[in-house]
């Protein structure tokens, strides 16, 4: 075959293809660039259940916002990674989100350890970062770019004590998980009961995260016969505590925290969950449309009932979107200023009154009681002395 002909043919083909690409590229309607929001949560490993719940919550929020036309006329896009609940992973992800994906802002759907690690990077790089439900006080401390929509330990602990007061309990046992979440709640509940209510804490003992057998602790508690048992825990430990307490014949009411706020708690504990009272920020009986839409859409999307973690991640996206809208720009400093000036934002987990100086949400709490296998409204907790995060 003639070589020259072949070369000519190849050149023609290249020109045709190149022309086609150029034509397609030039006539393509200008795409609306989405606003990129970073997100990380534990999608594998022991914390994956909560991580996936948070991811679904955040994705649902993005869906809802985009359905209403997005933010500043542009859709949101969630860029998410698995941090496996590992702080080192979180640090790597933070760098990746900031430098490779160039996100406008980011949200943590993760626990305290990874969130704390990543918060330093985001703050250093000047990218707004919102923690959905991680409770550690250091996450937001002295970090102007870091915010939190979830509860913090101090108000929640006080609220647990407040609920004990509602039950007229004066002799109280506290059994807590030995992690900062549990310790902070236990300390503040203890202080509230002793200082504000004038009650007595007759038992104060800790256990390790992941414990499944509480019979030893509960046997001792039973012998002391308290009026109520305060047990800050996550849902898995909580389910064991309430069922083993029932099996040991303990009748004192058990007061829990937001860690109980999961359909999994009800499923695992079964009948034993009846009568448990918890402090949380998700009021499933709330007549507000936002709450009811979230609950039903979440269930449609995932097939399971929503929990506090999913709701908090939803709220984090919601609040971020509100702030961007209010700022009217994607400049990080404008967004941070907007966040600082937000007031009375309707969220699924109650109304965000404002962010404190340290970036923590001031919002009401609610006590819920388990009746017939469901959480129901028990009491509102709006006392500013309780709900205001300390600075």
């Amino acid at each position, binding site marked *: 075959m003639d070589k020259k002909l072949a070369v000519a043919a190849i050149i023609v083909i290249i020109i045709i293809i190149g022309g086609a690409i150029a034509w397609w590229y030039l006539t393509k309607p200008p795409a609306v660039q989405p606003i990129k929001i970073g997100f990380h949560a534990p*999608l*594998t*490993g022991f914390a994956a259940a909560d991580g996936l719940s948070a991811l679904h919550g955040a994705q649902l929020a993005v869906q809802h916002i985009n359905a209403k036309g997005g933010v500043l006329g542009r859709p949101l896009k969630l860029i998410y*990674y*698995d941090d496996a609940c590992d*702080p*080192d992973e979180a*640090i*790597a992800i933070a*760098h*990746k989100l900031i*430098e*490779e994906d160039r996100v406008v802002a980011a949200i943590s759907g993760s626990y*305290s*350890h990874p969130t*704390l*690690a990543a918060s*330093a990077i985001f703050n250093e790089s000047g990218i707004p970062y919102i923690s959905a439900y991680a409770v*550690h006080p*250091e996450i937001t401390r002295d970090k102007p770019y870091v915010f939190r929509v979830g509860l913090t330990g101090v108000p929640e602990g006080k609220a647990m004590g407040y609920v004990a007061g509602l039950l007229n309990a004066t002799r109280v046992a506290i059994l807590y998980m*030995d*992690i*900062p979440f549990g310790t902070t709640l236990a300390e503040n509940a203890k202080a509230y009961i002793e200082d504000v209510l004038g009650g007595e804490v007759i038992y104060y003992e800790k256990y390790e995260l992941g414990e499944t057998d509480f019979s030893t602790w509960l046997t001792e508690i039973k012998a002391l016969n308290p009026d109520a048992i305060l047990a800050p825990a996550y849902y898995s430990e909580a389910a064991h505590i309430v069922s083993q307490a029932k099996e040991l014949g303990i009748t004192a009411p058990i007061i829990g925290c937001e860690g109980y706020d999961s359909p999994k708690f009800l499923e695992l504990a079964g009948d034993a969950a009846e009568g448990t009272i918890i402090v949380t920020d998700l009021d499933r009986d709330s007549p507000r449309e936002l709450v009811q839409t979230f609950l039903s859409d979440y269930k449609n999307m995932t097939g399971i009932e929503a929990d506090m973690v999913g709701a908090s991640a939803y709220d984090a996206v919601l609040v971020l979107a509100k702030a961007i809208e209010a700022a009217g720009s994607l400049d990080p400093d404008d967004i941070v200023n907007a966040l600082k000036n937000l007031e009375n934002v309707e969220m699924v987990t109650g109304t965000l009154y404002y962010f404190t100086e340290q970036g923590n949400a001031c919002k009401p709490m609610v006590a819920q009681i388990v009746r017939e296998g469901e959480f129901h409204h028990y009491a509102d907790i709006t006392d500013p002395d309780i709900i205001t995060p300390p600075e």
Partner: protein
Amino acid sequence: MQIGMYYITLLIWILIYAIAVMGLNITMGYAGQVNLGQAAFIGIGAFTSAILTMKFGISFWIALPLSGLISFIAGMLLGAISIRLKYDFLAMTTIGFNFIMVAIFLYYPIFGGSFGLLGVPRPRIFGYKLTGVTYLALVFVIFLICLLVNIWIERSWLGLAFEAIREDEDAAQTLGIDVKKFKVLAFAIGAGMAGIAGSLYAHFSMRVAYSDFTFAKSIELLSMCILGGLGTVYGPIIGTALVIILPEIFRPLRQYRLIMHTLILIILLRFQPQGLLGKGSYLETKIKKWIGGFQK
């Protein structure tokens, strides 16, 4: 084009872990003493360095060798405890050591409880703070020093004594090798390197917590070491790089990362238990042939 902090971070992690894995290779690869608790020694080094710099205001440049030294002593202790123990009892004791150290880190307030110590300072040199590329340079220099130590050990009587003990303790004793002393040394040197790695770890991530040094981390270190090939100089380094880089490449498939990671480990150990570069492995044979071809 500027190399992103992301890649620098990745490189720094690889080098830091490679130092600890090299240490593990000395204990396990050369001296044949199973150590399933190497992460605990990284922890000891990391906490030593963090406490010295944060609570006593000691300079990083002094804290770094001290961390190595404290880990070295801890390694001697573990070695001394383990001297009488036979194979599986030794393995179990090192697992136990890891669990116990993690519990101590968690329960003694000086280690900062479950959140550990936050705000470990970055090292400074003539007032210049080492971050990013400069920290990478620091880690690289220390990595090189450890590599040289490793190569030197392999060529010294020390390394020969280690290998003799690995192959047959009784025979080693009859040839004048004080097996107890060298076993303790093998643990101590391995632990010392882990301690150095721990110090670099603490000052890079600027935080230390018990949860970074669990038994699972020890298994990860072990798989790095074995993947590359126990008892070789370069195997552990390659293994470390692979174990850290592969999950990054597969990041979109994160859901299945652990499944792939364990599957690779199982398949490799089943068919190439000597690791990728170990004596008699497929790759080693090929490379030897290739080099041999050149020499001809």
